């Protein structure tokens, strides 16, 4: 085992070195930045077919402002992306503009990045998702896409069950009552849930959190001030357990994979509601294809506590940042602005089906679900589970399965989570 681990370490190291070598081999003039009439961009999207239109638009926008500057896009393989970038940061030279995932990936590397606040001031209103690319109040990248957890519902099943498909339940009691009719009249499960890997609880916590916690509790959670023994926090886990015990979920949730068996259950019309994603996979575009756009609805989280204000949980997905060694920061920042221009992002939305950061883009043609999501972005907040460490999330995965099978109580679960959260 150990030999194998070491061998793979050597292999990966070797790959990283050769990968880096091939990217920087042609010298600083070609793949690494450093010259004033040329910018080099690293990402993992520019090679993808459905992003071609986006890059065309962004390049055109930039060429208009700076006709004599060439831009080179270097598509790196995603599984080695941060290893390659780490090597470049160690060396203190490399690309001028780089793509980042929001959250931990960018926050761990802000020392090598340019503070963008002054450059993107005009875009702050137009784009959403800045928090995921900020640290200590400073912005380090401009968001491209958004990722979050809307609650989708199948309007056809709602109608069949005698419920009003255009007025989804706004309180948890109504939701549970609706579930009864759905189960008896359509035979479908109320909630499609895949919790084999334990991701189900992450989605549930984030989607339902704003319907249980007060806005103050919610903001404190995101800020790192988490009281796991607070009654409202416990209530989220009680809801999770009760939903399982009272048969709201599909059968065998603990052995159903979220990717993509649970989404398949929803797409097949075997579950009336599901907590999905906004971009990439398990999202409105996938559901539209199977259920027809007019049958896919998005509802705000049904209110559990009257003091709570439901909001859409979402974070910045991917974005572009500027390395602090670039000789011409103005030029690089201008490129980032072109990469987040409305025209470019509109192309990205249309071709790749991603919810992009630009909230002014007209999405009315893609069905009611996406319109609702974009409409909710204004009031949306960061997702609760994104604030937790990977250790705590891993523990929560297992505890969520134990809550469903009844081998642990809510009190025991939050106690363990609190201990893990404090340690992490």
């Amino acid at each position: 085992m150990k030999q194998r681990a070491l061998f793979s370490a050597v292999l990966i190291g070797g790959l990283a070195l050769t990968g880096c070598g091939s990217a920087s081999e042609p010298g600083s003039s070609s793949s690494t930045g450093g010259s004033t009439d040329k910018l080099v961009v690293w990402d993992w999207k520019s090679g993808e077919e459905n992003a071609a239109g986006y890059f065309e638009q962004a390049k055109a926008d930039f060429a208009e402002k700076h006709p004599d500057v060439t831009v080179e896009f270097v598509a790196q393989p995603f599984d080695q992306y941060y290893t390659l970038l780490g090597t470049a940061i160690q060396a203190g030279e490399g690309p001028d503009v780089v793509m980042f995932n929001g959250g931990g990936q960018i926050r761990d590397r802000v020392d090598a990045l340019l503070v963008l606040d002054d450059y993107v001031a005009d875009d702050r209103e137009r784009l959403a998702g800045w928090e995921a690319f900020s640290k200590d109040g400073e912005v380090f990248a401009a968001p491209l896409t958004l990722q979050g957890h809307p609650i989708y519902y199948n309007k056809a099943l709602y109608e069949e069950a005698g419920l009003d498909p255009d007025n989804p339940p706004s309180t948890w009691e109504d939701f549970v009552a609706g579930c009864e009719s759905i189960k008896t009249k359509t035979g479908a499960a109320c909630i499609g849930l895949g919790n084999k890997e334990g991701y189900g609880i992450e989605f549930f916590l984030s989607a339902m959190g704003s319907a249980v916690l007060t806005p103050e509790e919610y903001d404190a959670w995101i800020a790192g001030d988490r009281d796991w023994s607070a009654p409202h926090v416990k209530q989220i886990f009680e809801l999770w357990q009760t939903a399982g015990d009272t048969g709201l979920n599909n059968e065998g949730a603990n052995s159903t994979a979220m990717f993509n068996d649970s989404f398949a259950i929803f797409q097949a019309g075997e579950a009336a509601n599901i907590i999905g994603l906004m971009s990439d996979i398990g999202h409105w575009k996938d559901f539209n294809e199977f259920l027809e756009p007019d049958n896919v609805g998005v509802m705000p989280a049904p209110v559990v506590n009257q003091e709570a204000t439901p909001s859409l949980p979402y974070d910045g997905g991917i974005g572009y940042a500027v390395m602090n060694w670039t000789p011409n920061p103005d030029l690089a920042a201008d490129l980032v602005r072109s990469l987040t221009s409305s025209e470019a992002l509109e192309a990205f939305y249309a071709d790749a089906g991603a919810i992009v950061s630009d909230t002014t883009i007209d999405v009315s043609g893609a069905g009611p679900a996406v319109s609702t999501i974009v409409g909710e972005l204004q009031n949306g907040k960061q997702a609760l589970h994104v604030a937790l460490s990977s250790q705590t999330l891993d523990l929560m995965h297992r505890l969520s399965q134990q809550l469903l099978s009844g081998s642990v109580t809510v009190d025991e679960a939050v106690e363990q989570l609190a201990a893990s959260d404090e340690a992490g």
Partner: protein
Amino acid sequence: MVGPVGGTETRAAGDRSGPGSGPQARSRRRNAERWAPYILVAPAVLIIAGLRLYPLLLGVNFSFTGDGDRNGQSVGLDNYVALFDDPLFQQALRNVGLLVLLLPVAVAIPGLLATFIYLRVPGHRLFRSVYFFPAVLSPVIVGAIFNLLLAYDGPLNDVLGTVGVAPIDWLGDPDIAVFAVVGVHIWATFGMALVVFLAGFATLDPTLLDAARVDGASLQQVIRHVIVPGLSRTIQFVFVTTMLGMLTSMFGLLYVMTNGGPEGSTYLPEYYIWIQQGQMNRPALASAASTVLFVIMLVVGLAQISILRRSGKED
């Protein structure tokens, strides 16, 4: 070592009578011959020492350093304390114990089937190839197949439903999932053990079987008093390799079928190592876990060999 050295001396003694062999040439040749065995085994020794033992020591050494903020610092036994405090690792160790308990089953199945093939039950030619078939499939494919078969709304539960058995959550019930995965692992790998058993049977003296039959021994008696003692070395080999296989090559199945779940009930040390190293970014803790796994395998392997050797002698 004794063999070649003895040979050298004999040959050198023979050379003494040969014509045209001065003392100088003789000593040069003796020198070369003395070094030859070392040079010949050098590549193997260097490979084992450089690519196996040295990394092993590096790994053990690494397990005494810290993770994260304490990266590179010596932390003594902290990782091992954390390891044995972790309920997940305790679960993984309990599962190792379970595997040891299930080992006789995993060895008996190919052993019995090989016996039937050796005794030429009707259709034994067909069975010989059919039994080996799963062994050529990758664990990922086997896992994917059984994911479908064992799904809550899958075919197995449908079949059980037709005879009135309530559906069982094969991979979602923590008390059942580990047996489901081990069962699939045995199904997927027993073909290899079967082949080893058949090879063992080839060395069995058929006259003993004939003699037993003439003496009126029943099938049970033949297996108990002729086949098992005759195959004791083969059984010993299969025991050790099956145990090692269970401890080190179930990763693919676990990854595809259960992800260590539900509730961490199917964790094995190997899967734990991967999670800590790859997902939790705690390579030093993972090193400590792999050191523990190495020691377990060493102890279990040696214990098995000594027990089986003793029982082989009694027979």
